[in-house]
């Protein structure tokens, strides 16, 4: 008897008992389910929620694999054991050593994220007696990609519990949440354990434990350096684009994110309106800041000068705004639903991201705060877009009847 039919028998056997959702979830996860989604109208498409989720995960896998290589590469590079790789196909980047070290660091993050998150989901499914929802599949993949590589696993576990319970379950589970759960998890980590989430140590594996010893290595991100009116030596724009820079695990390679974005747009899972308008928003804010610098309104001794003088287009490749725009802002549950609303929502995300980035040196990256803020405003934006439409049609109606 195959595993599938065994699972099917188990499913029938436990039907109506408390454990039923757990078996159903396993069955659905491994095989095509014999039913489709029946509530939650957050995605209006004919296919099953699971397929949508899997598409996003497929778009994320390259970033994850690249993140593993990069974790190893940054570590060995900081130690001075290897040469800097020139370009995406550089010889010292795609090595087995890098992959082994990176996988050793990154895979536990993935396992903890999925293990803890799905355990919470199972628990709630059993208590509430509904089916386990697929919503965590994408969140669980996003979480390891947006944290520093050296984050202690127990912190990640605590944050995942918080994010899934407070960010999602209290609102009624998948499709009902106001805030993006992955970003809720990151925000929790950020405010609860700031020493592990920001600063100049955490972004390269090994930098924290070596701090204060003669072997100390720098673990700073580019943004952190810019915020202090300095820069990192030996990094050019192509390095930023290919992703050969320190940062959160999966957000450094702009190249792979763009490929993922094209994939999401092509499969019509991600909204191109949100992605595009986010980038436009970021560029507009960058241009404004460049204008301020060019006009000489701000002295070069100002603490904002470093980031304000960054050419506007570079804002897209130095931080995680691309990752946020493609994978976070487009979350169909928490984003605006109307087309016009999506333009406004995305634009403000980009705009506010760069504003936080420049004006708040304590938080060199503002993308996740900007997206969470706009998550909260998304229903309001939608409301006014819909009301505006209603008004327009009422006017038309009056003209006709008059």
């Amino acid at each position, binding site marked *: 008897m195959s595993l599938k039919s065994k699972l099917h028998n188990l499913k029938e056997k436990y039907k109506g008992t408390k454990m039923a959702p757990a078996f159903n979830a396993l069955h659905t996860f491994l095989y095509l389910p014999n039913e489709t989604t029946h509530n939650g109208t957050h995605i209006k498409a004919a296919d099953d929620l699971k397929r949508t989720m899997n598409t996003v995960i497929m778009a994320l896998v390259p970033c994850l694999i690249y993140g593993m290589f990069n974790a190893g590469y940054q570590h060995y590079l900081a130690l001075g054991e290897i040469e800097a790789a020139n370009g995406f196909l550089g010889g010292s980047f795609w090595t087995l050593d890098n992959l082994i070290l990176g996988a050793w660091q990154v895979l536990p993050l993935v396992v903890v994220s999925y293990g803890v998150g799905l355990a919470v989901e199972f628990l709630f499914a059993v208590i509430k007696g509904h089916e386990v929802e697929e919503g965590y599949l994408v969140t669980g993949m996003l979480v390891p990609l947006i944290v520093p590589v050296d984050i*202690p696993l*127990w*912190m990640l576990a*605590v944050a995942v519990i918080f994010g899934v319970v*407070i960010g999602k379950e*209290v609102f009624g589970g998948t499709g009902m949440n106001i805030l993006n759960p992955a970003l809720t998890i990151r925000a*929790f980590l950020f*405010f*609860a*354990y*700031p*020493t*592990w989430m920001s600063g100049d140590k955490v972004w390269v594996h090994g930098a924290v434990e070596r701090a204060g010893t003669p072997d100390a290595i720098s673990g700073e991100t580019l943004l952190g350096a810019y915020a202090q009116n300095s820069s990192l030596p030996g990094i050019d724009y192509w390095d930023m684009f290919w992703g050969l820079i320190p940062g959160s695990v999966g957000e450094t390679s702009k190249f792979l994110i763009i490929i993922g974005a094209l994939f999401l747009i092509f499969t019509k899972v991600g909204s191109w309106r949100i992605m595009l308008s986010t980038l436009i928003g970021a560029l507009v804010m960058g241009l404004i800041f460049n204008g301020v610098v060019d006009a000489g309104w701000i002295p070069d001794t100002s603490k904002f000068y470093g980031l304000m003088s960054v050419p506007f287009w570079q804002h897209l490749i130095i931080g995680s705004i691309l990752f946020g725009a493609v994978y976070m802002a487009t979350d169909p549950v928490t984003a605006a639903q109307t087309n016009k609303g999506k333009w406004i929502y995305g634009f403000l995300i980009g705009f506010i991201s760069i504003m936080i980035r420049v004006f708040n040196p304590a938080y060199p990256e503002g993308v996740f705060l900007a997206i969470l803020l706009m998550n909260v405003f998304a229903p309001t934006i939608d409301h006014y877009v819909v009301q505006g439409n209603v008004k327009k049609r009422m006017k038309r109606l009056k003209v006709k009847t008059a």
Partner: protein
Amino acid sequence: MGKDTKLILDPLADNNPITIQVLGICSALAITAELEASIVMSISVLFVLGVGNVVISLMRNIIPSKIRIIVQLIVVATLVIIVDLVLKAFAYELSKTLSVFVGLIITNCIIMGRFEAFALGNGPWRSFLDGIGNSLGYAVILIIVGFFRELLGSGTLLGIKILGDPVAKTGLYAFGYENNGFMLLSPMALIVVGIIIWVQRTRNKALIED
């Protein structure tokens, strides 16, 4: 259960001023980062509400109803000033921690609410019990929130190091544990209050309103 006991016990759980009536949230978020501050705040409110309720109840037949809010404010302001001065005299450090929030007891909705809703229509003894009951209900929530926030945020309770020393790495800190800085911020207090509300309404479904 006697009518008088009900006055004390009801606000402790099923008619709690914070979790059911959602009053007095402001101070519950602001001063609960330390357990000691929560306890002192609770005692202050206990005094103000207990005495205030009796005073208003005694005067209830001679207060012209048009200016009753002004009279209530004067009573509560007098009592708050007494509390503030006592704290400044005998617990100066604490009064600095509580800072403006002692003064803001005046605006605590629980107090005006009980004056309006109860003391103006009941005798002094029952008003006294009602004041004690409501401030105890307020105190329970403040102490629960303060307990979790201080324990998880600073690793201490009433200033005593419970989880070990974060600098010398003793106790739990030796295993890599770290204090949760989010607990010290007000948003987390709101979430803790929210969790208490959640637990309470799950245990007693009758409290869930549509």
